[in-house]
């Protein structure tokens, strides 16, 4: 998807927030794309990890927040252990999720999950989903 970058489109506040929450210097990303090739969710995400980092670098807030990438990430760290720049990409992605969750907006509503599914799932599934996808 093409994005026009102008002085006005760069959301500096957003770039700073992602940096603070993640603790990662994601500006050092050189766009090699290793992360994208190893991401197990690549079939399901609207943009690749490389692209989401690129969008975040340029402060294109609305696109970063509207694509499903951050919600599809399972924090498996496959990208993180392979990044030649040593960026912990899952941390950057978590920061993006938190920008929504910290406004008290859930991605998943616990009470909307089918009761039969809750009964058959391991507790670890609920705990981890609620940690990653509820406010």
């Amino acid at each position, binding site marked *: 998807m093409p994005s026009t970058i102008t002085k006005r489109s760069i959301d500096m506040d957003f770039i700073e927030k992602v940096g603070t929450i993640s603790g990662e210097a994601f500006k050092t990303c050189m766009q090699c794309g290793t992360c994208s090739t190893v991401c197990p969710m690549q079939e399901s995400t609207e943009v690749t990890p490389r692209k989401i980092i690129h969008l975040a670098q340029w402060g294109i807030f609305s696109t970063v927040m509207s694509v499903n990438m951050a919600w599809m990430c399972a924090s498996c760290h496959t990208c993180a252990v392979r990044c030649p720049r040593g960026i912990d990409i899952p941390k950057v992605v978590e920061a993006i999720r938190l920008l929504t969750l910290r406004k008290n907006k859930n991605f998943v509503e616990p009470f909307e999950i089918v009761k039969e599914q809750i009964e058959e799932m391991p*507790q670890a599934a609920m*705990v981890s989903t609620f940690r990653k996808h509820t406010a």
Partner: protein
Amino acid sequence: MCDTATIEKKVPEVAEELVPIYIMGKKYEVPASLTIMKAMEYAGYQYIRGAGCRGGICGACATVYRKPGDYHIRVGLACQTVVEADMYLTQIPFFPANRAVYKWEDVRGEAEEVFAAYPELFRCLACNACTKVCPMDIPVMDYVAAIKQGNLEKAAELSFDCIQCGLCATRCMAEMAQYHIAQMVRRLVGAKIAVPSPHVDKQVAAIKSGHYDEALKEVMALGTMDPFNQDANKENIDKLKELYNKRQGESHATDESWEPDDKYALLEDAR
């Protein structure tokens, strides 16, 4: 039973030492020996809600307070906690809390049913705020942990003293209502998991068989007042009092060998 006759209506002697307390930010001078509830009444508040048994059992009068210069949140039941100088307080008689609806006949007594009814319990962060705020010193965080582990018996045991005041829910970061969840757990345990007590079964059968009907009729008759015969009424009341005072119950001091005089409902093998 709430015996309204014992509620103190008289304003205490003001010769007593007065201490300043702050009710919802407003300062009042109240006698130092009063409970928070009596102090509020002394200050002019009238209870419509938030005063239940006045005996520390019902959990209706949960109160939150702080002391100057101390960040700790302190809690107590208004009917039990004596005022302290400079405490500033508010009562939290009610806090909105999610309460699951489940069909009693259909429950199986499994942890998964609690998970399905209250999935939010998996949002617990083990922050321990619930335990710290509990006026009954219940290890709330630990019973939530036990429920997550599927150990309903342990959760029922740990939460047994809960008076449903709801203070835990006011502090929960995961936004769950611990006390409602624990109540469901205790109900599942009581109905489907705990070993049934043969004593209770026998006693219920004895009541159903009409064994106590005569005695009950006698009590009912004594309680029927005749507006035109005050002497007879007084006699009946005295008889009722005598019956009440002579009632039998197992005292805490008795050992295993204690038995009531009426052996009708005792189990044969328990003798």
